[in-house]
C-alpha cells in the first residue's frame, strides 16, 4: 500500500467575485521510500496540494491517506520543510532539534543522544549550542532537517526548501539531500519549480498544470542511485530534463498570476 495516497482531491478558494478552482480531482500515490516531486508553473496549486497533505489546508473533496490514516490536521508523521528553515531563534540548534519530542513529552536521554547523532549526520557537530543566527543559510537548512527527522516522520513534505538559497549553497543542499536519502530512504514529496532539481532528486516527477490545477503527466526518472550532482551532465539526464521542461512549458500559464503574486502562497 502506498505511504501517501492522494485520492480525488479538489479545492477551491472563494473570493469576493466567485470561487477559484485551485485543484481538480488530483490522484497521486507515493510509495514507501519513494521520492516524488511536483513541478509546475506558479499558481498551479502544487503548494496547496502539499499543504493539504500536511494537514494545514482542508480539501473540499477527496482525501489524503498517510500510513493508513486519513489526514485531518498537522502531525509529526508528516515532516514539513519550508522555503525558510523556520528554526526557532530563541533555541539553540540542539534545543530546536529536541522541540518535537519535548512538545510530545517523549524526550528522554535516548532522544537527546539521537538528536546529537542526527546533528552529526547533517554535519553540525560542534554547533549544538549555537543559536540559529550564528549559522550560515545552508547550516540552518541542515538543522531544520535534523529537527524534522527526529520525530521519524512517515513522509517529508518539502515546499521549495532550497528556493531562497544562493546557487552554490543550493547545489550543496541538493547533494546533501541525495546523500541523506541514500542512507535513510525516507518518503518525500517535494514541491519545486526547478526542473533540474526535480529530475536530479526524484524517482518520479509529477507535472501540474494550472487553472484548475491537475496532474497532466507523471514522468519516471530511471536514473541509478546513488546519484551525485555530476549526473546533471549525462545525456540521459539532459534528455529527461528536456522532456519534463517541455511538458511544463506546454501547460497553460497560471491564469491567476497577477503582478507576480502567487495565489497559492497568498492564503
Amino acid at each position, binding site marked *: 500500500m502506498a505511504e501517501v495516497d492522494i485520492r480525488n482531491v479538489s479545492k477551491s478558494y472563494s473570493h469576493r467575485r466567485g470561487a477559484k478552482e485551485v485543484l481538480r480531482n488530483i490522484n497521486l500515490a507515493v510509495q514507501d521510500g519513494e521520492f516524488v516531486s511536483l513541478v509546475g508553473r506558479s499558481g498551479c496549486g502544487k503548494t496547496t496540494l502539499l499543504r493539504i497533505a500536511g494537514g494545514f489546508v482542508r480539501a473540499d473533496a477527496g482525501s489524503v491517506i498517510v500510513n493508513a490514516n486519513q489526514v485531518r490536521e498537522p*502531525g509529526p508523521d508528516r515532516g514539513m520543510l519550508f522555503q525558510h528553515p523556520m528554526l526557532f531563534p530563541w533555541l539553540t540548534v540542539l534545543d530546536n532539534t529536541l522541540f518535537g519530542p519535548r512538545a510530545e513529552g517523549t524526550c528522554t536521554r535516548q532522544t537527546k543522544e539521537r538528536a546529537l*547523532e542526527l546533528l552529526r549526520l547533517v554535519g553540525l557537530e560542534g554547533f549544538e549550542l549555537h543559536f540559529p543566527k550564528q549559522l550560515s543559510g545552508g547550516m540552518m537548512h541542515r538543522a531544520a532537517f535534523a529537527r524534522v527527522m527526529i520525530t521519524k516522520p512517515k513522509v517529508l513534505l518539502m515546499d521549495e526548501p532550497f528556493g531562497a538559497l544562493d546557487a552554490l549553497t543550493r547545489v550543496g543542499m541538493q547533494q546533501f539531500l541525495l546523500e541523506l536519502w541514500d542512507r535513510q530512504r525516507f518518503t518525500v514529496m517535494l514541491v519545486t519549480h526547478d526542473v533540474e532539481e526535480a529530475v536530479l532528486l526524484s524517482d518520479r516527477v509529477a507535472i501540474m498544470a494550472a487553472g484548475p490545477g491537475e496532474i497532466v503527466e507523471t514522468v519516471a526518472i530511471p536514473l541509478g542511485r546513488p546519484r551525485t550532482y555530476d549526473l546533471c551532465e549525462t545525456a540521459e539526464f539532459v534528455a529527461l530534463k528536456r522532456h519534463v521542461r517541455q511538458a511544463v512549458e506546454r501547460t497553460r500559464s497560471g491564469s491567476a498570476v497577477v503582478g507576480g503574486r502567487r495565489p497559492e502562497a497568498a492564503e
Partner: protein
Amino acid sequence: MANPTGSSLQDVSSTPRPAAPSRMPGSAVGRFGAIGVPVLRRFAAIDWSRVVMGLIGVLGIIIIWWIAALIISDNVILPSPADTGRTLLHYLSHPYPARGDTLPGNMAASLSRILVGFAWGAVAGTMLGAIMSAVRPLRLIVDPLIELGRPLPPLAFIPLLIVWFGIGELPKVLLIGIGVIPIMVVSVVAALDAVPEEYIEAARSLGASRRYALFHVRIRAALPAIITGLRLAMGVSWTSIVAVEMIAATNGLGYVILEASNYLITPLIFSGIVLIAVVALILDALLRIVQRLVAPMG
C-alpha cells in the same frame, strides 16, 4: 555513527563565522548539564564602545550644565551640579518639607505607585491585547476605542479621577494603568501578529498541540517585542505619576519637585529630576536584562 556526511558538504554550504566556542571537551551528552554556558554568553556581549560613548554624552551634558551655571551664577535660576549634589545628599537623610519625608522616602512612595499601577496596567493590557489578537470580532470592536483613547494624554483624566476617587492612592494607581493599557494593547497585538504563521505550522508538524504551539511558539516568539512595549509603558508611567503627584499628593517625587519650586529651592528641583532619571534608568535596565534573556543573540 562516524561522520558520514563527509567534508564535502560542509565545504559547499559555506563555513560559518568563527563564533563563540561551543566545542567543549568531554562527552557529548555531558553538554546537557552546561545550560549555564549559553546564558553566560548572552551577558558576555557587552558592547564597551557603546558604554564609553554613552558616558561621554552624559559627561558632556554635565560639563555644559556646569559652565552654564558658572556663567549665570544664580543658584535659583540654575544651580551648579555641585550644588545639586550637595542638596541631594542633604535631603537623603533630612525630610522635606520639614514635616514630610526624606528623598528616599518620597522616592519609595512614587516607586510603589509606579510598580502597582504599571503591574495592573501591564497585566490588563497584555491580556486584552492577547485576546484581541486571537478573537477577531473583539478586535474590531476594541480597536477603534483604543485608537480613540490613545491620543488622549493620561493627564487629562486626573481631574476626573480626583472627583471620582479623591486624592488617595487609588486614583494615582488607576491613572498609571490608564496610560499603560493602550500601549500594551497596541504592542502585544502587533507582536503576536508579527509571528510568522510558518513557525506555528512547523511546530504543529513536529507534534505540538495547538496549546503547546500557542505558548511555546507564538507567545514565546512575541516576547521580545512585548517587552519593548513594557519599556515604552514604563516611560509613560513616570510621566503620569509625576504629574498626578504635582496635583494631588502629599508625598512622592512629583510633590517634592512642586514644593521645592514653590519655595524657589531650585537645587532640590534638580535633585528630584536626577533621582527620577536614575530610578527610571534602573527600571528600564532591568527590563532590558529580561529582554536579553528572552532574545538570545537578538
